[in-house]
């Protein structure tokens, strides 16, 4: 794709000097990361999609693999694999009045737990968590569950999401259409 453009400032976070790295460690406590993940989940449950999108960095990816343990988003299909450009389009569509698949819209509520925080490369934080989500739409209720992997980078007093991967327990099942965000 010759017209693919990569942002020159691919990493929105300045390379942190030692003092900042120390401060990152101080900020990235399990409690702070868990709070961030719970807040993120709440944005989705409240359908505040633009606020949710704003949590992502300019070079973020959002990935829901189609196979357990899927190694790669380019060699194997994914239920969702969005770069920032496609994620913006996806979120914009969710607000479109003619989005049939969300007319009426889904209601969701989700539980986040079992958060594990580990340092990752380049000043980032890797957070793994489990979730369960109930989706209700037009007299049908669906139960979703899986494990989320966040790559977080510090941003001011909080974090931004550089990558989010959601491994659904039933990712390789026969599935009706998915129009909710995980």
């Amino acid at each position, binding site marked *: *794709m010759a017209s693919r453009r990569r942002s020159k400032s691919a990493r929105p976070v300045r390379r942190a000097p030692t003092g900042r790295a120390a401060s990152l460690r101080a900020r990235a406590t399990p409690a702070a990361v868990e709070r961030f993940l719970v807040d993120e989940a709440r944005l989705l449950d409240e359908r505040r999609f633009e606020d949710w999108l704003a949590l992502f960095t300019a070079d973020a990816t959002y990935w829901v693999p189609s196979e357990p343990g899927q190694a790669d988003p380019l060699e194997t299909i994914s239920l*969702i694999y969005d770069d*920032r450009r*496609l994620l913006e389009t996806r979120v914009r569509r969710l607000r479109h009045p003619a989005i049939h*698949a969300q007319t009426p819209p889904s209601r969701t509520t989700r539980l986040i737990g079992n958060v594990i925080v580990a340092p990752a490369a380049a000043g980032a934080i890797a957070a793994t968590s489990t979730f369960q989500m109930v989706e209700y739409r037009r007299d049908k209720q669906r139960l979703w569950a899986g494990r989320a992997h966040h790559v977080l980078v510090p941003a001011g007093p909080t974090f931004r999401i550089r990558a989010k991967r959601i491994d659904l327990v039933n990712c390789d099942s026969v599935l009706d259409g998915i129009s909710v965000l995980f």
Partner: protein
Amino acid sequence: MTTTGLDLGSLVRGERVHRRVYADPAVFDLEMARIFSRAWIYVGHESQVRRAGDYYATRIGREPVVLVRSEDGRVRVLRNRCAHRGALVVADERGHAADFRCAYHGWTYRTDGSLLAVPLPQGYAAAPTADPALGLQAVARSASYRGFVFASLAADGPDLATFLGRVASSLDDMVERAPDDALEVAGGVFKHAYDGNWKLYLENLNDGVHPNAVHQSSVEAARAQDDTVVTDGAGEIAVRQMRQNGAAYGFWEKEVGLFTFPFGHSYLSDYHTDEKLVAAKRDPVFADYIAALERAKGRERARAILSVGRWNTNLYPNCSFMSQFRQLRIVHPIAVDRTEVHTFNFRMRGAPARMFHDTIRFANVVNGTGSPVLTDDLETYGRIQAGLQAQGPEWINTARQFARERPDQGGGHVSDGTSEAHIRNMFAAWVQYMTA
């Protein structure tokens, strides 16, 4: 023919179809018996069973079958049902086995379906292993066209070449885009489902008028997308495809041809060029691919291959494929109001490895269970099925450009891309199967 009070032929008129054809479970059962048990049904691709002992379990209509490469190297389509008590013998979707052993009592079959061993053979008057009827039965007929394996549960009927007819050229198109003239299934399988009749899926795939309504949300979301935002290729292809779905009606009328053929087959031509979809001339991976194709086949032949611009080719009753991005869908009827669709991707042998990345990206947006495009189609099928529960208005309308099909030199008929000719053509085949 009248069956259980149904005059099947009368359910289809030239420009309308009775709602029972989509909503009546009795009609559905007859479709399984008369269409899916007679037509050539695409089963799988030879690359899915590369080595002897490789197998892939699937269905023909509602009947479980297994595609297997036997020890003798032949590809067979066997009924996946133990001759003893009827259990599924192959329970995994795919794998490799020296032989197939039933879970229930351990009856064991060779990969050609013949019975190898049973427990306690002395309990039978004659050795079950000597009785050819006590094997995994091969389906009545199976045949392969350029690696694509089809089967028919009926012993009689047209051969595969006759059945495919002119649309074999769409399979040729998909194969010949590979520099080595070979494809292999790769990259996983989407399995999406919807609460609607199986026929709706192929009808929709070659319906050039639906995108502007069904896909309005993704078309307009894509049009509003800032193209300077970062993409690793996923957004590039997806946003292009969504925008193309918003092509004006005039484009479908003037630029796109809808070609229909005997046995219910059809294809749409010239919906996409490679330029629209992959920015072919500016993409270095595509340039490498063109170079590989030219090395393998010569410049003139490569140009001719790449000039074919077919969109979906539908093989009635339940297969559709698209050669430019090498996607194939199998529509599995589950019930009158429930359908599963399995979608496959093909890697081109001899092409740069990264060409397959675009196949994956394209699959995610057109076949993906979470696609902003496909999900609106699935929702629409459900609404059709719900609407057809209304018993008062008995007929649905398939009249767009009725009787305006023109004979085509390829042996079929051609209409413009806004016609419903492909639906009427599928129903002509439907009547033939159902009333024969």
